[in-house]
């Protein structure tokens, strides 16, 4: 397929050559894709939608969404954990293979809070495979001379993602693991609570979080309690990724809704990053 450009979303569909694939942790793979048009226009918080099968087979039929972890020259990087059959198929790809990919999709992180003289402190809170988009955001902030603080959670030490990348960007990083094998023994949300608590009264922060739903809900609660702006990057099953199926919705608080129709927002188009206080958090 020829690259086809989408003026409004600046998204394209293309066959991207897989430049490298490597296992960065048990069951975690990092892919670099040669996709110049995507690499040049992507922004932190956006994602790509990848076809996990050969064109003439039909299972698994739908694409899989992955946050853009980095744009490097003509390449983009993604990092994923093998969850099911789609990610397993992708983990079997080899350098030189062609990958059917659409992107960049979704709205970038809203970084308007930094368009001020005294920018607030960006707190990047990532759990598990929620880390990749935050690495991209860290890079974007560093390019603007803003230094975020990263709080990274994982199940165990060898599943901690992004520590090297953050270090190479000179981003201070605190770690938490469920088993205490490295960093704080406990939740990444403990680190957030602690950090916001310690924040000098005159300082302000903005939280950017990505990770499992229960973690994000907890992050949202903590941020609200500390009256701190918080943006979360959400996941939902995404059949199309381009806003046409209405499948990937999350419920928004009543006050956000102009009418009943607006109760749900498509995270592929109006997200994946949304302001946490606008979301109607549920059980999941």
């Amino acid at each position, binding site marked *: *397929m020829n690259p*086809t*450009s*989408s*003026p*409004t*979303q600046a*998204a394209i*569909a293309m066959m991207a050559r897989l430049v490298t694939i490597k296992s960065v942790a048990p069951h975690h793979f990092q892919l670099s894709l040669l996709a110049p048009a995507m690499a040049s226009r992507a922004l932190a918080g956006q994602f790509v939608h990848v*076809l996990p099968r050969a064109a003439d087979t*039909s*299972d*698994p*039929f*739908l*694409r899989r969404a992955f946050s853009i972890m980095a744009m490097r020259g003509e390449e983009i990087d993604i990092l994923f954990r093998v969850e099911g059959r789609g990610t397993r198929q992708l983990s079997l790809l080899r350098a030189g293979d062609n990958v059917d990919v*659409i992107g960049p999709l979704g709205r970038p992180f809203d970084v308007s809070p930094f368009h001020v003289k005294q920018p607030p402190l960006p707190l990047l809170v990532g759990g598990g495979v929620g880390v990749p988009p935050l690495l991209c955001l860290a890079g974007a902030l560093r390019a603007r001379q803003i230094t975020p603080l990263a709080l990274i959670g994982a199940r165990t030490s060898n599943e901690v993602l992004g520590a090297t990348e953050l270090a190479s960007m000179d981003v201070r990083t605190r770690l938490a693991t469920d088993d205490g094998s490295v960093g704080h023994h406990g939740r990444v949300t403990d680190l957030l609570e602690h950090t916001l608590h310690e924040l000098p009264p005159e300082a302000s922060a903005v939280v950017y979080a990505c990770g499992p739903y229960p973690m994000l809900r907890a992050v949202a609660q903590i941020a609200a309690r500390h009256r701190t702006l918080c943006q979360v990057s959400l996941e*939902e*099953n995404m*059949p*199309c*990724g*381009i*806003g*046409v*199926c*209405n*499948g*990937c*919705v*999350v*419920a928004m608080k009543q006050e956000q809704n102009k*009418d*009943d*129709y607006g*109760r*749900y927002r498509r995270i592929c*188009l109006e997200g994946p990053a949304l302001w946490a206080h606008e979301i109607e958090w549920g059980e999941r």
Partner: protein
Amino acid sequence: MADLVTQIGPLRLQNPVLTASGTFGYSDEMAPWLDLTRLGALVCKTVTRAPRAGNAPPRTCETSSGMLNAIGLQNVGLEAFRRDKLPFLRDCGAPLIVNVAGETVEDFAFLCRALSEEDGIAGIELNISCPNVAHGLDFATDPHLTEDVVAHARRATTLPLFAKLSPNVSDITLIARAAQNGGADALCVANTFVGLAVDVRSRRPRLSNVTGGLSGPAIKPLALRAVWKCAGTVSIPIIGVGGIVTAHDALEFLIAGATAVQVGTATFAQPRAVLTVIEGIDAYLNENGFRSVTDVVGSLKLD
């Protein structure tokens, strides 16, 4: 270049490939992805009288070669549709078929009357077969109700009128005949098949709505058989839909008796799927020496 012009009752289209309702948004989302003027026609997401929030998430899940959806007809409602969506839709360059749904016969008639007042609408598709809302399937599983709702819609509009049938029935030809008797100009065969998926870890349904409609390649043989049955029963044109991904898939439907086809779930995997289908049909016709697409419609050889 073979002649792709297709006549669906009173409606003349440049080719027989339409988009399926609910899989192409209101077209503004798709405009960046393809040249909409190349479509046979564009069928937009179902419109109801009042706005509908739709079902709680999760609304979709993947299954083998397909997916279940229970969107629940989320839509802006008639008024906002006329105000916010129609202006773009009517100017997008493709003939516009508005898909409508209601809970009562009067709802359907009301929607047809209201849309008939608007310019730039090429036709109306009656969604009497949505499996994901209360009573959504009542109409299309009962010949009497089908005939009644189509007849009321027919009296409410002079626009070309399609009835979209459900495959979840014992004998779809009874419903097809009823829709024809009610005055439909064409039949859309078919909507999704009702299915269920269970997450064995949580022992919960994968969809908040419990059940959903199955679409995608998995259902192609079933939809194709429904089209073939209907084409052998009624004299009005059939629009085949269900699992079409490639031009070959579309040709199976045309050969089995469909006058036109719709492409649905395939668009999710390939935003430009509908164009690939159009191009492939053209290529097939040329390679096989057909001057017009109408020559393959219903050309299935049975001996």
